[in-house]
């Protein structure tokens, strides 16, 4: 182990150098460039001049088209000016129409425009990278960033479009310190795992709350939303920010605001791209020659490792010298052809005395994981006037997977409108329809699915036999199968055959709609009433062909789920400035309900593959088994927030929410979640004003409590479940005790402290936000194991404590600011430490993820939630250690494990140990953006350090042989001449030879990595050559274009979540779907 850590260090030296270089370059450049702070605007003395002309206009945001209120408009060379109103309009009297106006607004690049005789002048301002005055969406309201007291990170539309992203997860990945996005695998339509500030809970979920356009907890936000439609994403991280969502806030809140219409000329935009995906790395397993070599060696060792004298039990002993019973190469003409003696590297002697060589050497990986072609098209039409604004959006996206026949299609349409009905009433509404269809073409008839079949199918078997019956006999024209070479397990299926004979579709249709009435009661007081629905249905269709589904003879399934959610939220917003005091507040009440119903039906035993899932009744399964279930849960809440600010210097926020949830036990239906936060803008103090380089300095502190109500519905009661028991060939209804109830069950409580520092330097060209947080989740839900002698085995109780604490650093710099050249750098760095503080009544370890050999992970007080568990593999027993090996019932050549307690027995639990955490020590993302004239360049590098990953493919790919094809590393297994190895001597999985396989140190690998997350080069055509177009940009993007890691599998990140995955422990790999490198060409057009 020591050896390993040293080599990691040397690797990291390289990475460090890389980082340092980046920092140095940017510092030097920032100092040498011309640093200018925006000039202050003076008084407003208007000369009484009869010659003057009145100029009018609207100032908008160049990228969104939205009106900008509060923009300073000043006549060049004077102190005369005006400020735009709430709709971005200004009126200014100028001495003559030859004047030049200067438009400036904090956070935007100032513009000078000559009137040149015009009296109407509309101006679009470009945003600066660092914006103190940007509007941040808080729950049930908005705030200027400078007024924030809590920790909220925002991503605006421009940054979302840095790189083409198929879903929100990809769009925000790496961009926000403290938000960890792990793409589970490379499958299209995949749902990334998102964690805000660590993992709080063991038995409850850890998914942040999604609020999309005010719909709280919208379903499937990650897959249905097209990032192109998004105006902004705001992530609420600390308790001050999330407490307004009470019992649903503990995992963080992600607020998504989509684009809407605006007053102005109707704008049509088209964004589209086409993407090529290729496999990023190879999974190295044996080719035919290596496979035959290992097989022969294995049989030679059979006698040594078979526990009984079963020499004649080898059904395929002829890989040994002739003379044993069984099938031989001459009996397998479909796989072997005659050759001269010495005609093949391994002498394969048939029973007929001739030598043979294999006919095929198939590389299934290159056959199954083929380059993909995806494309995405998005059209938006937006416009309107003062009284009615509209937006219409359409999207078609096709994401093609590397796996043959796997794809994800998304169709979506959205219409929204904002209407000014009277002076005191605005109505906003939106309707979204979304449909997506996912073809997975995977199969779960054996664990590991198609990715496993790719590496385990014998390479000497062809994907499909040629049709010549002379040579290929009964196999002519059929799909090849490992079992055609009668050595291994009958279970391994040809990946090619699976891809051709299995079809699986998952369809989702989702409809959301909302209407919001916005009453302006007084200029300071508004009342909003919102009603929203989310109606979605899911359908799953699967058919596995007669051959591939084995004993099921064709298996078809249709599963349908319908879910319906509605909410009604009503709240007041109050904003008032009285002198130096600024007061604002929110007060509201809300109801919501979620209902679901599902129906599953399946059948098997089909006489023909024609019908697939289209006609379930054709199957003749002994007992097709329909199942159904339904349920609902409800929330009733009251919430309030108050903000107070004194001269913009001293800021205070108090928030509270009372949530009642049907999920909670009868004894604790309502919970209260308060928070408070303060901030001090030191930079506004007189004593700081002289420090010209310092444009912003703010200290923040917050504390509060939020909850996690995702304890599941119907878990607080004691259930008597029903089942059917067979009695004399008939199913007979039966009742049995199925759970231990807990009427006291309630939400998990997370108390979070956050201390933050915001710094802005040189006119906010450098902004830095540093946060330290400490989150303590108490009353954590835990399925506490109980003795099975008296109980069903566990009870769900509020019985645990988990701590997450960490640092977040978000640094944004504008390194170079020249008229034609700008360079920005954004760095997000975060480190989270996760520790279990209390676990169950006794604090006893809880072993989890039991799999081949034993539990793969452990929950232990003092350790992180995602801690791997297993034996310590010391290597293999050498010939000198024969007597030591014998003590444990083994021989030289066997894997040697540490007998931790020295009792002479390798006991998995007693001798097992902690093998490291799947959580990284820190994550970092560095994005550099440059624009030179009309070119823009973005390079995004992601770094993760210190996480471990369990490579379970070592179980079937390394620890055993011949049952299936093995990983290439078995070529370095123990032999009398190669005793210094971790891999036991090869032996046939069949024939009575034992082998040892346990989760152990050998399965755990370092998952640190440096990833080329994305790089984009874009070119915007100059305005003068565009006719009728306002914008035309083309770009080329590479994503996941390199990965530096020591991890040996497809990807150091993610899990095969379809196969024994676990939402708590990322990084468990049992034949993951490879994640591609993608290359994209895209176009943005606006007119």
């Amino acid at each position, binding site marked *: 182990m020591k050896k390993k850590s040293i080599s990691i260090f040397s690797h990291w030296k390289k990475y460090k150098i890389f980082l340092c270089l980046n920092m140095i370059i940017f510092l030097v450049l920032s100092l040498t460039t011309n640093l200018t702070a925006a000039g202050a605007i003076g008084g407003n003395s208007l000369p009484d001049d009869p010659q003057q002309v009145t100029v009018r206009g609207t100032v908008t945001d160049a990228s969104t088209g939205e009106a900008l209120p509060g923009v300073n408009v000043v006549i060049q060379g004077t102190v005369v000016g005006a400020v735009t109103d709430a709709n971005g309009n200004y009126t200014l009297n100028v001495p003559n129409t030859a004047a030049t106006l200067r438009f400036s607004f904090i956070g935007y690049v100032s513009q000078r425009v000559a009137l040149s005789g015009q009296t109407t002048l509309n101006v679009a301002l470009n945003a600066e990278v660092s914006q103190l005055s940007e509007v941040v969406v808080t729950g049930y309201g908005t705030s200027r960033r400078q007024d924030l007291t809590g920790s909220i990170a925002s991503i605006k539309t421009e940054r979302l479009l840095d790189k083409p992203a198929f879903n929100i997860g990809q769009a925000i990945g790496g961009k926000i310190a403290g938000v960890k996005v792990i793409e589970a695998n490379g499958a299209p339509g995949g749902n990334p795992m998102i964690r805000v500030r660590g993992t709080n809970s063991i038995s409850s979920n850890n998914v942040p709350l999604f609020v999309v356009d005010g719909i709280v907890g919208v379903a499937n936000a990650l897959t249905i939303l097209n990032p192109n439609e998004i105006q902004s994403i705001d992530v609420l991280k600390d308790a001050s920010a999330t407490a307004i969502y009470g019992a649903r806030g503990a995992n963080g809140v992600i607020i998504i605001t989509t684009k809407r219409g605006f007053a102005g000329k109707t704008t049509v935009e088209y964004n589209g791209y086409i993407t090529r995906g290729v496999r990023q790395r190879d999974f190295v397993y044996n080719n035919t020659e290596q496979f035959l070599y290992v097989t022969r060696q294995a049989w030679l060792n059979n006698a040594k490792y078979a*526990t*009984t004298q079963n020499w*004649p*039990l080898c*059904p395929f002993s002829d890989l040994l010298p002739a003379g044993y*019973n069984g099938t031989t190469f001459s009996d397998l003409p479909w796989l072997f052809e005659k050759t001269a003696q010495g005609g093949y590297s391994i002498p394969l002697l048939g029973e007929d005395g001739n030598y043979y060589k294999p006919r095929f050497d198939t590389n299934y990986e290159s056959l199954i994981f083929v380059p993909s072609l995806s494309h995405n098209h998005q059209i938006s039409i937006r416009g309107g006037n003062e009284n009615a604004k509209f937006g219409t959006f359409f999207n078609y996206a096709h994401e093609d997977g590397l796996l043959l026949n796997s794809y994800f299609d998304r169709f979506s349409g959205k219409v929204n409108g904002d209407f000014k009905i009277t002076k*005191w*009433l605005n109505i906003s509404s939106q309707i979204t329809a979304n449909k997506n269809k996912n073809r997975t073409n995977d199969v779960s008839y054996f664990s590991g699915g198609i990715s496993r079949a790719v590496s385990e199918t014998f390479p000497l078997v062809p994907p499909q036999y040629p049709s010549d019956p002379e040579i290929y006999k*009964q196999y002519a024209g059929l799909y090849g199968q490992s079992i055609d070479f*009668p*050595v*291994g397990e*009958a279970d391994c299926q040809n990946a090619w055959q699976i891809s051709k004979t299995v079809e699986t579709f998952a369809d989702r249709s989702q409809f959301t709609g909302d209407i919001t*009435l916005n009453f302006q*009661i*007084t*200029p300071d007081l508004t009342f909003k*009433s919102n009603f929203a629905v989310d109606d979605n249905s899911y359908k799953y269709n699967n058919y596995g062909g007669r*051959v591939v589904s084995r*004993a099921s003879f064709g298996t078809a399934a249709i599963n349908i789920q319908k879910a319906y959610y509605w909410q009604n939220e009503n709240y007041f917003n109050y904003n008032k400035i009285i002198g130096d005091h600024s007061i604002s507040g929110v007060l509201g*009440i809300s109801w919501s309900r979620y209902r679901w119903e599902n129906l599953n039906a399946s059948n098997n035993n089909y006489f023909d593959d024609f019908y697939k899932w289209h006609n379930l009744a054709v199957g003749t399964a*002994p*007992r097709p088994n329909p199942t159904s*279930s*339904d349920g609902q849960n409800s929330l*009733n809440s009251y919430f309030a927030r108050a903000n107070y600010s004194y001269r913009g210097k001293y800021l205070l926020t108090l928030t509270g929410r009372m949530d*009642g949830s049907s999920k909670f036990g009868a004894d604790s239906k309502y919970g209260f979640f308060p928070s408070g936060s303060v901030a001090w803008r030191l930079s506004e103090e007189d004593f700081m004003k002289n420090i010209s380089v310092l444009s912003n300095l703010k200290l923040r502190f917050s504390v509060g409590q939020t909850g996690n109500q995702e304890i599941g519905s119907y878990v*607080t*009661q004691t259930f*008597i479940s029903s089942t*059917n*028991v*067979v*009695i004399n060939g008939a199913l007979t*209804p*039966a*009742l*049995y*005790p199925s759970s*231990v109830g807990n009427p006291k069950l309630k939400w998990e409580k997370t108390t979070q402290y956050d201390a933050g520092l915001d710094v802005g330097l040189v006119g906010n060209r450098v902004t830095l936000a540093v946060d330290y947080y400490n989150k303590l989740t108490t009353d954590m839900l835990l399925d506490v*194991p*109980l*003795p*099975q*002698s*008296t*109980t069903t085995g566990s009870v769900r109780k509020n019985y645990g404590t988990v701590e997450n604490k960490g640092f977040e650093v978000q640094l944004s710099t504008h390194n170079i600011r020249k008229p034609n050249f700008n360079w920005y750098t954004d760095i997000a760095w975060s480190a989270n430490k996760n520790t279990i503080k209390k676990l169950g009544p006794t604090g*006893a370890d809880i072993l989890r993820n039991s799999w081949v050999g*034993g539990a793969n992970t452990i929950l232990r007080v003092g350790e992180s939630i995602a801690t791997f568990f297993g034996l310590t593999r010391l290597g293999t027993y050498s010939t000198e250690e024969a007597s030591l090996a014998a003590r*444990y*019932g083994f021989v030289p050549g066997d894997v040697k494990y540490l007998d931790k307690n020295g009792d002479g*027995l390798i*006991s*998995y*639990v*007693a001798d097992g140990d902690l093998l490291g955490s799947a959580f990284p020590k820190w994550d970092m993302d560095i994005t550099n953006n440059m624009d030179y004239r009309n070119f823009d360049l973005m390079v995004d590098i992601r770094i993760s350090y210190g996480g471990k990953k369990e490579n379970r493919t070592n179980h079937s790919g390394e620890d055993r042989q011949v049952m299936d094809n093995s990983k290439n590393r078995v070529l370095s297994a123990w032999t009398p001449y190669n005793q210094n190895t971790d891999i036991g001597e090869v032996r046939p*999985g*069949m024939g009575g030879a*034992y082998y040892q*396989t346990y989760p152990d140190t050998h399965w755990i690998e370092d998952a640190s990595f440096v990833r080329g997350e994305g790089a984009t080069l874009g070119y915007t055509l100059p305005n003068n050559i565009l006719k009728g177009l306002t914008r035309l940009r083309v770009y080329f993007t590479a994503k996941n274009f390199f990965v530096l890691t020591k991890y040996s599998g497809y990807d150091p990140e993610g899990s095969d979540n379809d196969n024994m995955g676990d939402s708590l422990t990322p990084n468990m790999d049992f034949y993951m779907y490879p994640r591609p490198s993608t290359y994209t060409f895209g176009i943005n057009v606006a007119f």
Partner: protein
Amino acid sequence: MLSKFLNVKEMKYILLLILGLGLALGSCTKFLEEVPTGSLTDEAQITSNPGGYALATGAYRALPTWTASAQWWGGSVMNSLEYATGKAYSQYQAADLYKFETNVESGDSEYFIFPWNYMYRGVRDANLALKMLPGVTGLSDTEKSKLIGEVRTLRAFYYFVLVRKFGDVVYNTSVLTDVAQASQPRSSLKTIYDKIIVPDLEFAVNQSALVDERSTGRVTKHAARAILADVYLTMAGYPYQEVTDTTKPYCVDGLWTMTAYPVNTPSAIALLQKAKTQLDFLYGATTYKTWDYSDLRTPAQNNKNGAIFSVQYLAGSSNNGIVNTTVPLSAHTTVYTTETGTTIPSLAYWQSYNPIDLRIVDKAYFYYIDNLASKYDINEGPAPKFPLPFLYKYYDFNAAKVVGQSGLNFPLYRYADVCLMLTEVNWTLRQLGQAVSDDDIIKGINDIRTKAGVPTYLASNLTLLDIMSERAYELIFESKMLYDMRRTRRALVDGSGKFEALRNLIGYQPTYFTYQFSAKHLLDPISSTEIDNNKLCLQNYGWTPKQQGQN
């Protein structure tokens, strides 16, 4: 400014309307009530007649776990029992069966975790039924008594398995209401027999309204009698006879010393007499007299002929899990997805049969050749030669060749077992000085031998070796041998054409094992999950993992 806004009357009305709506919703207290739709809760009143039957049927739920898989590929609860005797073989070792051969098994194995959990699952199901049945108004008194008889028989059976495997076990006859009471120490196996197993079964046989008839899946009085006879016979042997003091930690300290068999105590004699009563009754029941070896592998004969009480299966719903483990490893002779070759009698066991025994004729209890399944070869040509005899006893042909799912019942008690128990009881009573006629002694065993085409015995020279050998021949892989070995503390020595000898279990080394049995092997290790979650539960002598602080 303000007045301009506030003058608008309509707005007020709209606001009032919305607020009013909101308050109306808010005052609805049922909004947060949780009403499950798909499952009953413990507050449900089960009063109907079918509801009462469903409660009783729940107690059968744990029986099909008899052939449940365990410890990965090809392992099962059932084949591990045979492996522990030293008379089984496995072609594939992923199921860790080799650990029995090399004495490295422990309570971490699912071979011990699962039976513990499954049998206690049955106990808990039975306890719930026994708690609720008296309140089911839809049942007549006779029905109630009958159902309680069924459930108590099943509870006794589950405990009977538990004590034979684990010795002292947790005493649980109620429905737990306070999870704080979940951890309980083990009670003496003698207490379990005396306070649960025997009273439950004696209630079923002597007091309940159960009817004396053949079981067609549900427990009948016949079934209860068979179990009770086995219980008495077992109690007349070990370890029950050695446990005289229920406070002594025999199981934890391995205080096993006695080896003499039969055990000559008044208690043993009395128990054997009671067993004889039940066995005589069943032996006299004409309904079981016609049976054949093929019944055991023919689902159509489930609950017929010699079957007295069986685990019930139904293809596609609840499958017998052992059929695909008995066929040769990946030989492509069946349509099963996996052919594991993990449930095979050892070659030496097979060689101990008399060569003329009809039970080893091809396709009786064993088979020696098979054809490829049609899915691998349309012509169903011959499969590669078998390397050794495989078990045909449970070869459900339709399951193996056509559907890949078996509805074959697993026999827990059948007529042949009753015959052999009867002979053993009578023979033992004579050994212990009781008057028993010659005919009584030989009638059971000779029925079995005649059927097998092997010479019959005379009462005068019948030995315990003969009786135990016959049990081994007839009841091969019926989950009997391990318990026979433990209750007699004797083991059969493999031979040629016969078993060579009956040896003391302690010190005996099975043909393929690397070690001799010791006091440790008289019991199984307690499940490691129970050790982890029940701190009052100590581990058996010689086994790991031990309870924290246990020496």
